[in-house]
Each structure stands twice: as C-alpha cells, then as structure tokens.
C-alpha cells in the first residue's frame, strides 16, 4: 500500500471518526435525555430529527449512502467506469460513504427508533453490519490488484520459495533452516467440531510457530532487519496457508453474503423513500 493510499484511507477514516466524535460531543447532553425531556433541551430545535442540524444529518447521511451504493454498483457493472481507478479503491470509498451515512442517519434519528422509518434504520444497521462482515470475508479471498478473485492454484503460486530465499540470503544453521521451512508448510488440520475452538487453537499454534521462528533467527545472529524480514516471510506464508485452507469456504460465504447485504439495502432505501415522501408531504423541507 502506497503512502498516498494510506493517507487517503486515513483521511476517510478520520472524517468518519471525527464526525462521530463531534456529534457525540455536541449532542451528548441532548441525546442522553429521555424522549419526553428532549423537547425542553435548548438544543432541541437544532438536533431534533426535523431540526436544522438533525434534518441535515438525515439528508446528507441518506445521500451519502445512496451515492456510495450507486457509485460502487455502477463502477462494478459499468465498463466505462472500469477505466477509472481500482475497484478496491472504489470499494473503500463505498465503505467510507456507507459508514459516514449511517453515522449521520444515526444522529438524525436522535437515537429514537420507532415507527416505520425504524425499519429503514435497522435495515441500514443490518446493511452496515453485513458490510463489515462482508469486508472481512472479502479480504479473506486473495485478489488481483484490480480486485479479481484468485483461483486456488493462483493463490498457491503466491507462496514464496522461502527455502531458496533462506539459503541464498541468510546464513542459518540447519536446524533453524528446517524449523523455518517447516513452519511455512500447510498442516493437516484435525477435526474439531467447535469452530471457535478450532480457530482459537489454530491461532495460538500459529503464534507459537512465529515465536519459535523468532527464536531461531535470533540464535543465528542475524541483523535486526534480516530477522524482521525472515519473520514477515514466515507470517506471509502462514497467512496464505490460512487463506488457502479457507478459500472455498470464504468464496461460498461471499456468495451468500450478497444475498443478505443487498435486500437490506433495498428495504432501507424503499422505506427511506416513503419516509422522505411523508416528510415532504407534511411540509418538512429542511433548508429548501
């Protein structure tokens, strides 16, 4: 990841976090009140859902989500837009807009969840949460730089020839060499009914393996940079091993995830339209 891209990601994240923090800070005394008391808060006129700020949060948040969804959907399906930017970056912007949007909508609701529009809100929450899960699944599937999924063989080819690298670049004793090489090989997993226990045990085994690798390279008096590089090679291979192990599972999960993520978004949008329509009909037009 380039520095510019890191800065881009940091900026997007910062916008979301700062927005959330500021709204919490300025609205805390209002939002913490029981519904029956809020009307009498001095910030009610601004912070109520139909208030100067509150209404704006709803409109801007909704537009953010709509924009985020539409842009990403169009980018994925349009050949024309395929030339503009990496799909990965569009996804990141989609995530930004669809994270910022719910945050603003959350404050638009003023944490009052009732009525039909609550369906839209909770749908939004579902979309958001599923998006988080989807993002996790997404990164579990190795992709090309354009974002295309890699096949199992392509993933296997990503593995480094760590044996060659170790023998050519570092002077290691045989015991250490064999230990490191062994650590990067896929292990045959024992059957474990409890998935959580399975992942936990595997996690700790991997940590243990990395610790033993660190000890081995340290024993061979490698420089600090060399030690770090060797350990990163091992970590990369272990991660790839993990992804190879889960690839099929994750690919299947990702198919099902779409089934959940999209309908919630559609429900959210439909009710949002009804909500906005009713609001406009009753004369609440914010600044317009």
């Amino acid at each position, binding site marked *: 990841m380039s520095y510019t891209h890191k800065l881009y990601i940091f900026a997007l994240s910062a916008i979301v976090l700062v927005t959330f923090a500021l709204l919490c800070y300025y609205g805390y005394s209002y939002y913490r009140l*029981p*519904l*029956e008391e*809020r*009307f*009498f808060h001095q910030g009610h006129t601004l912070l109520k*859902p*139909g208030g100067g700020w509150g209404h704006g949060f709803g409109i801007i948040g909704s537009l953010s989500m709509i924009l985020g969804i539409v842009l990403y959907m169009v980018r994925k399906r349009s050949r024309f837009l395929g030339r503009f930017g990496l799909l990965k970056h569009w996804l990141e912007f989609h995530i930004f807009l669809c994270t910022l949007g719910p945050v603003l909508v959350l404050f638009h609701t003023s944490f*009052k*969840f*009732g*009525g*039909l*529009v*609550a*369906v839209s809100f*909770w*749908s939004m929450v*579902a979309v958001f949460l599923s998006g988080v899960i989807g993002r996790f699944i997404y990164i579990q599937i190795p992709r090309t730089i354009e974002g295309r999924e890699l096949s199992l063989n392509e993933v296997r080819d990503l593995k480094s020839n760590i044996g060659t690298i170790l023998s050519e670049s570092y002077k290691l004793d045989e015991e250490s060499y064999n230990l490191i090489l062994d650590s990067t090989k896929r292990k045959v997993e024992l059957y474990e009914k409890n998935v959580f226990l399975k992942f936990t045990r595997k996690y700790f085994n991997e940590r243990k393996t990395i610790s033993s690798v660190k000890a081995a390279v340290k024993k061979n008096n490698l420089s600090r940079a060399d030690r770090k590089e060797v350990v990163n090679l091992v970590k990369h291979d272990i991660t790839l091993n993990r992804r190879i192990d889960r690839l099929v599972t994750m690919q299947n999960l990702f198919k099902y995830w779409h089934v959940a993520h999209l309908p919630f978004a559609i*429900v959210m949008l439909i009710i949002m339209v*009804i*909500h906005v329509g*009713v609001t406009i*009909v*009753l*004369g*609440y037009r914010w600044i317009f």
Partner: protein
Amino acid sequence: MLFSTVPVIAQISPGQLASVHSHLEGISNCTHCHTLGDKVTNDKCLSCHTEIKARLDLHKGYHASSEVKGKNCTSCHSDHHGLTFQIIRFDKEKFNHTLTGFTLSGAHSKKVCKDCHKAEFIANGKLKSKKFTYLGLNTNCLPCHTDYHQKTITAPCLNCHGDAAFKPAPKFNHASAKFPLQGMHQTVPCVKCHPVTMTNTIKFQQFSGILYKQCSNCHTDPHHGQFGPNCMSCHSEASFHTVKGISNFDHFKTKYPLENKHQGVPCKSCHKTNVTDPVKHSRCFDCHSDYHYGQFAKQGVIPDCSGCHSTKGFTGTSFTIEQHNSANFKLDGAHLATPCFACHKKQEKWSFRQIGIRCADCHKDIHEGFINKKYYPDNNCSICHNPSHWGEVSFDHSLTQFAITGPHATLSCRACHFKKDSTGVDQQQFADMSANCSNCHKDNHNRQFETNGITDCLRCHNASLWKITTFDHNKTTFKLDGKHQNVACAKCHKTVTEQNITYVLYKIKDTRCESCH
C-alpha cells in the same frame, strides 16, 4: 427482524403522542394536526382548542400577550415525544404571570400554580371537567376567595384590599366612606365600630349598614343628656377630652357655675387633665391650696374659704367686724379702720393665729425710754391711750409731780412733752421734766423777774388764769397811789427793745417823776 423491531408496521408517526392527544393516534389522524405541505399550523391547533381561540379573539390571556403572539403553537407545545410527554410545561418560577392579564403579587406570588388553577375555581363546565387546565379562572376575587362580607359589600374587593393579605385592607380609605375617620376615631380598632359576629355560622364583620350619624350610635352619653344630644357642640373627634369652642361653653349648665373671678380662670387651672374629667368642686380646697396654712383649722378640719372669701376675689374678705369681735380681739376705735394686713401681715405671710392681743404686739412703744414704766406697767398703752383716738390720752397727770390744772388741762400732751429739736424733728420728753414755767413757757419779761436764775411766774400769774389777778404794785418799790392808780400800765411800762428783744419793761430802775413826766 423487521416485525420484531417495529411494533406497529406501517406506523409512520415519528413517535407516540402525548396522552392528551392519544385519541389522535393513527395514520388517518395525521391531518387533524398536520397541514399537508405546511407542517403544523396554528389554525389546526385552534380548530380543536377553541377555548384558546376564544381568548385570542378577545385579545386576552397569555396566548394573546406579546410574548406569545405571532408564534407557532409548536414552538412551545410539541408532541410525538411519548405518552407521558408534558405538552404544557414551562418554568413556573420564571413565568411572567403578568402576561396572562393577572399579575401575581403579594400573597399570590407565594402560591403555587395548583393553589389557584383547580377545578373548584373554574366556572366553565367544559374546562372544569378537564384533568388540569390553566384556563377558566376569573381575575375577580370571589371565584377563588370566600366572600367574607357575605354580599353586604358590592364594591370590588380590590377597592379596599391589597393582594399582600386580606387583612388589613390597605387601599380602603375611610375618608372616602360616609363616615370619614378623624381625630381619635383614627386610632379606634375597627372592631370597636365594626363588630365581629357569627352570621350563617361564619365569622362575619359588619362594615355596611352601621348607624353613624349620631355620636350616641356608638358612644354612651356620659352627661346623661345634661348638655343635649349634640355632642359635637362641645366635643370634637380630635378627642372626647378635647372640648372645642371652649370659650362658648356654658359652665352654668354644669354643677359648678363659674362666677366672678372664676370666669377668668383658664380651664386648665382647674381641669388639670381633660376638661371632661370629673373635677371636685364642693370645696375651695378641691382646687385651691390653703393660703393660710391651716391657721383656721379647728380640730384638724380646715373650714372652707367661702367663710371669709368669695369668688369675687381672694383679697377681699367677707369676714365681718362682728365675726372678728367674736374672737379674742375685738376691733374698736381706730382698729375698725385698720386694714387687716396691718395686724395680720406684719411679715411676709399673713398670720391669724397667736399674733397677740396686746398693743405692743402690734404697736411700737414710742415712749420706750421716755416714760417711766411705772406709769404704764406691762406696756399697757391703754392706761393712757384708747383705740378710738390715739391722741386722746387719759393719763392721770396728778400721778406725777406736776398736776395739771387750769389751762394746762386743755393742752395736748404734745404741747408740753414734744418739742422740736434743732432739726425740726419732734422730740418727746416725759421724764425729768422741770416743773418750772420757763421749761415750757417763754419768759416774755426778758428775765426781769428772775431770782437766782429762776423766774417764778406764779408769783404774778395764776396757772388757771394767766391774767394777773393777784399782783400788788404796792409791794414793789413804787407804790401806786393817787392818779397813778388809774394810769394804764403801758403809760409807765413801755415796750423796749434791747439786744433785739422787745419786751415790756416792768422793772423800772429810775422811779423818779421826771423819768416819766
């Protein structure tokens, strides 16, 4: 998931309505309050809240005040905030009640809202039936307060009462009443004239229908009608005890008519406190002090002054001569004409007792040292003098060595016993007086008949009759005989002047004829 999160599907309400509006819940009722395209308008609110609209139309009440006028109802009264939301809520401590048209002041300012805003004070049946409302009260007093006066007073309560407390009634001005309070009436507690009774089993104080035109409506006549029914002819409201027009007061109507000197005496001299306070008047001593310091007391009782004095003046006295003569010292003679003070005020103070009855007690013995005491023992002047006339002396001169006879008896004592000295002042002499004639008489003969320095007048003259009757010229050196017997004495005894003394020359030394012839 959707059905579990949304209790009422298709509910587009932003929140539950407050309990008072709960009958408007439901999608079909939105437009009861909301105007399509125009939020919630005041007209919508007032179409239901007609009681407010009626007040607004009358430009009365808080909603018609400058603070509210022109505002949207929703700026103060919102909804969709839950069943228990208080649509009417405001800072009761800071609420400016004046804007409602009824300023809370005095005792009202200490009340909480519910003390007044309660159903029993509301007349309107519709408002009265509400669970709670701030409407429906009247700014008049009686809807909330009990009519203490039980409809006996028709004037508005606030004409008299303030809002600090029912009692007292600070705005009541008795001066504007039919009976203005003046003078001492201002200090009389209200209840003295406005009695408190129990009427209709309620404590009641009468303020109307009280008789007031006659003083006797309230006051008892202490004079029992003696001075007539018009108390104000003498008394004023300044005080019963302060009599007005005192100069016109007819004291003869009292039991003690003012006569003579008493008429000029200031009232205060006798009426030390108030003129209406009873004053003892049966004896002079009730007002006057005993000028004589009890000198006339008999057996401890001082007789009244009126025995001697009258109201015409203290100086004069009605004590008669007869009364004086019945005392130890009878007045007669000059004493009758002697003013009292001559005897009774010999010093600064009058004295009527033990002043003595002897002459010397009053009179000075002018003969002291001049007359031998044997002639008036015990200084008893009356041996010689009498009260009728001091000059009438009844002294028996024969008791002395010089019995008075003849013309001497006709002389006053002064003729012999008083002589003027060189300064012209009378000097008395009683003792050691010579019996010689020359002691009193002048020797007109220029000592021609003096023998041994003494001229014995009686050799020629007679004490009873000065004229010489017994002189025998023949016993002289020159006998009268012949023609000489008929010759007038003056023919021979001529008047001569010698050393400025003119006298008749009787002793003629030269008796020769030719001395005359």
